[in-house]
């Protein structure tokens, strides 16, 4: 009896291993191997066609003297500073509105989520048309009410905020869903007792909704930070990193180093360094938000 049970477990183990084999193989091929290989690349100069050349720590020497990479990190941080608050404020407000019993609620929820599932390239091309200085819809609207045109993506000071606005529009739907889930988990009796105590709508929002959404907030901040750090498609398609490198994101710079200039080793070094920065920033953020 016991033997047959053991045999069955062993048998099911084998099936389990077999079933997880596709994942293990893909993990080894597409995650573990590239990670290990790019770690080796850190100490080499390699452009795919020439043999790998050992350069020791020279890639780090370059990294710490590379003003363009510093600029790219600075740009990425600027993007985050604009993008995260915008994302949270809009997502929270719209989620609160969509949590009310309003007509066409399902329709609005779907509409807000739609940009999330549309291709980033398509959206970026569309927004490029909207931002056009001469013929863009936004500037046509501004001029029609007597306001001057804005050089949305043609001026170094405007370009990154313009990209942040577009990225917020694209991603806000995802965070609306997260906030909606959080809102629906808040017990109704909390609001009812607050109402009995004569709390205003703002007080209910400030003292019940916001604290109850703390864990969702942590998740949203971390997800949008990581998403913000991986800013790539928008500047790649829309501005190419310009004007004057004002929209050059760290990811775009790493991509350029690897695939435009063929510096695989240096790009790997930048990649690891940047991953470390993301890790530290997210850790700090998590501490700050949780302590609040």
């Amino acid at each position, binding site marked *: 009896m016991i033997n047959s049970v053991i045999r069955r477990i062993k048998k099911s183990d084998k099936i389990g291993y*077999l079933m997880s084999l596709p994942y293990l193989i893909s993990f080894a091929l597409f995650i573990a191997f590239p990670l290990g290989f790019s770690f080796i690349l850190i100490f080499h100069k390699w452009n795919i066609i020439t043999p790998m050349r050992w350069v020791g720590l020279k890639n780090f020497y370059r990294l710490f003297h590379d003003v363009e990479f510093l600029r790219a990190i600075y740009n990425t941080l600027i993007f985050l500073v604009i993008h995260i608050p915008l994302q949270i404020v809009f997502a929270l407000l719209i989620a609160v509105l969509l949590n009310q019993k309003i007509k066409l609620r399902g329709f609005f929820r779907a509409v807000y989520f739609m940009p999330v599932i549309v291709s980033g390239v398509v959206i970026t091309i569309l927004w490029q048309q909207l931002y056009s200085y001469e013929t863009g819809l936004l500037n046509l609207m501004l001029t029609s009410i007597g306001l001057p045109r804005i050089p949305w993506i043609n001026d*170094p000071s405007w370009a990154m905020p313009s990209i942040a606005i577009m990225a917020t529009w694209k991603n806000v739907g995802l965070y609306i869903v997260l906030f909606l889930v959080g809102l629906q988990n808040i017990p109704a009796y909390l609001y009812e007792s607050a109402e009995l105590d004569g709390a205003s709508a703002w007080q209910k929002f400030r003292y019940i909704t916001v604290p109850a959404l703390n864990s969702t907030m942590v998740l949203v901040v971390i997800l949008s930070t990581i998403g913000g750090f991986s800013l790539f498609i928008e500047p790649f398609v829309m501005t190419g990193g*310009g004007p004057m490198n004002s929209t050059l994101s760290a990811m775009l710079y790493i991509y350029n180093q690897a695939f435009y200039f063929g510096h695989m080793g240096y790009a790997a070094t930048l990649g690891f360094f940047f991953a470390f920065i993301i890790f530290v920033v997210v850790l700090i953020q998590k501490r700050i938000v949780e302590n609040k």
Partner: protein
Amino acid sequence: MVKKIVGIIVGILVILMAMGCGRRDSAQQQRSVEKKELTYWCATNPQEVKLARELVDEWNRIHKDVPVKLQTLPASQSSEEALLAAIAGNTTPDICSNMWPGAMDEFISAGGLVRLDTFPDFWPYILERVSEDQLKTFQARDGGHYQIPWKTNPIMVFYNKRIFKKAGVKAPLETYSQFLDAAEKIVRDFDGDGQADYWMLYRDIKPIWWQRLFDYYPFYICASGGKTLFKGDKIDFDNDASVKVFQFFRTMYQKGYMPVAQFQGDQFLAGRLAAQISGPWLVAYIQKFAPEGFEYGIMPIPRPDDYKGPIYTYGDPKNISIFKTTKYPRQAWKFAQWLISRHADLRLLEICDQIPIRKNLLNDSTFAAYFKKKPQMTVFARQAPFTRGVDGVADLKEIFNAISQEYEASVIYGRRTAREAVKRAVKRVKVIREWNRQ
């Protein structure tokens, strides 16, 4: 159950492997019965394809033992990228005639090219065509020759005669002052609608590295009396000539003689630009697409006011190389000789309006009829000996990118002075070079 699943998977794998091997075997068999053949890649523009098609057909009529198969360079952002991808994938042709000297260092380091001076008849054949001095500019760092100098496209200034005349400007404009004075006269509101009718010059404002080959670089070569960015392995553009070029273009933008905008369509042919920086290929383009009555002239790159000496410019050379993957190097070399023969050079002029790198081009009777028919091309032929290519250093693309970034900041957006921008570009190039040094 488990055994069954494993058995099925192994069975499928064995069948797939057997099918793969079978396919490879049959492909190898097919190849072995194929006749000897050379693959030749040419540039993708219609004129060069036409030239290549004609030369290949003529070759194939005579050399039936080793015929040549013509292919255009695979589509990519640049021909260098396509060639690098081909080297990486071991799918290079036997011979290619669109080799940019700036990318040669990578191709040579990858061991992708045949060293041509190992052919016994290399020197007599090549020196009959190209001067030793000019040949030296294409020599690799290891002292070898991996490219046959083929054609040069001296970068010069085309100008619209009608606009010049209307503004009372006389060509050629030789110095920066003359150019700026002319721009002041040209960029004006002639028809009284409150807007300037013409721009003096236009350049794409995106800081793409190769854009600098058509503004900063030819102007720098001119201002420095024929210098390139490096002297041997040392940075050589940290000088007044660079600053003057940056300052010249900066003034052009600051005074509104050049627009900070991106135009669609050809504004030069549309009669909105007074001048255009380009190479001889523009002659054929103008002849094909210019509206009736469009009159143009060609003048050398303007020089700083205090410069004295011959006027140099960038030559935008394209050369011929043989790839290591070739099974028939000797035959490929013979075909390369055919591509640079006197007859082929004449057809290069006639079909493409591009200048072959050949000694005494204007005195050679073979080409006399062509230059008589197209006198504007003599300007380029005369300029051809006074051209410079690019340095055969590693990471040249990134070096031009560093210059481009500073050019954009200083010249287009006026955020830093010309001297400051040059200094920063040099500093960045130093980091790139230092990093690259073993």
